[in-house]
């Protein structure tokens, strides 16, 4: 199986990812694309310590993720690619056209962001970046857990209507 889910989640690896999605997906590996985590041995060990031992973790930069995406997509296990912010996913999708669908799983409150859903707060720049992904043909859906209905950007509260 290729990577089943490309997810933006500012909690990175956490309960929803490992249990909520991981159990029904039979998740075998996670690719965590985050420069800060990739550059910190402490953070890498922290996540390794927390996840089930049978689940593989790859910590990468955007550059490495672009270079190795084909390898992960050919992996027989079910996989998930995670970024902690919209900007990282935007950079990734621009350079990796094989990514056709992105899941917004959790972007929480921060100054400058507006609440769109209980678990999604977006700045104008982040909303613009998500729309730009859609304009390039990437399907962007918003869903925290698999049992929830996948929403499109235009269905979010306060979303600007596009012509």
């Amino acid at each position, binding site marked *: 199986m290729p990577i089943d889910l490309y997810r933006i989640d*500012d*909690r*990175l*690896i*956490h*309960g929803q*990812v*490992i*249990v909520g999605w991981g159990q029904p997906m039979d998740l075998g590996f996670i690719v965590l694309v985050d420069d800060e985590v990739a550059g910190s041995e*402490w953070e890498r060990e*922290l*996540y390794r*310590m*927390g*996840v*089930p031992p049978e689940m593989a973790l790859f910590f990468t930069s955007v550059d490495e993720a672009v270079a190795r995406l084909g390898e992960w997509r050919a992996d027989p296990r079910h996989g998930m690619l995670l970024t*902690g912010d919209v900007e990282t996913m935007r950079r990734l999708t621009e350079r990796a056209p094989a990514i056709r669908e992105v899941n917004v799983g*959790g*972007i*929480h*409150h*921060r100054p400058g962001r507006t609440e769109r859903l*209980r*678990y999604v707060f977006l700045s104008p720049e982040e909303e613009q970046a998500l729309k730009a992904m859609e304009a390039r043909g990437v399907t962007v859906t918003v869903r925290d857990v698999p049992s929830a209905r996948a929403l499109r950007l235009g269905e979010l509260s306060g979303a600007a209507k596009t012509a």
Partner: protein
Amino acid sequence: MSDPRGPATAPGGGGGPKAIVLAHGTVAEALVAAVDLITGRGDRFSPLSNQNLGAAEIDALLRERVDALGARVIFTDLPAGSCNFAACRLLKDTPGLMVVTGVNLPALLQFATRDTGSDADAVAAAVERGGSALRLLTGRPSAH
């Protein structure tokens, strides 16, 4: 009106919080309320929730509570959860801090009711009690 992320102290009969319980949703408050109901010692714990918070906010909230209480023990629910990762981040620069994950009611009851020994002893006893409390119980096999 109570803080939805959890009060700094829980109800109880005195002694003050010795540990923080950080968990998903309302789990921490419910566990601490149950400890109080059973032992009257809910005030040994300070419950916190990660609800609707990003990773950086959970980190900040927990650090603030640890500093405010001088707590040296944190119980979390899921090993791979954001609560546990936040607690483990504090291990890096908080000497003496202990994090226990996979918390359950028997573990908290054990910790709350141990009045002698060090925090480390109380934590070890809680881990033992909480771990051994998880058992499979089945009915007596039918005769046919």
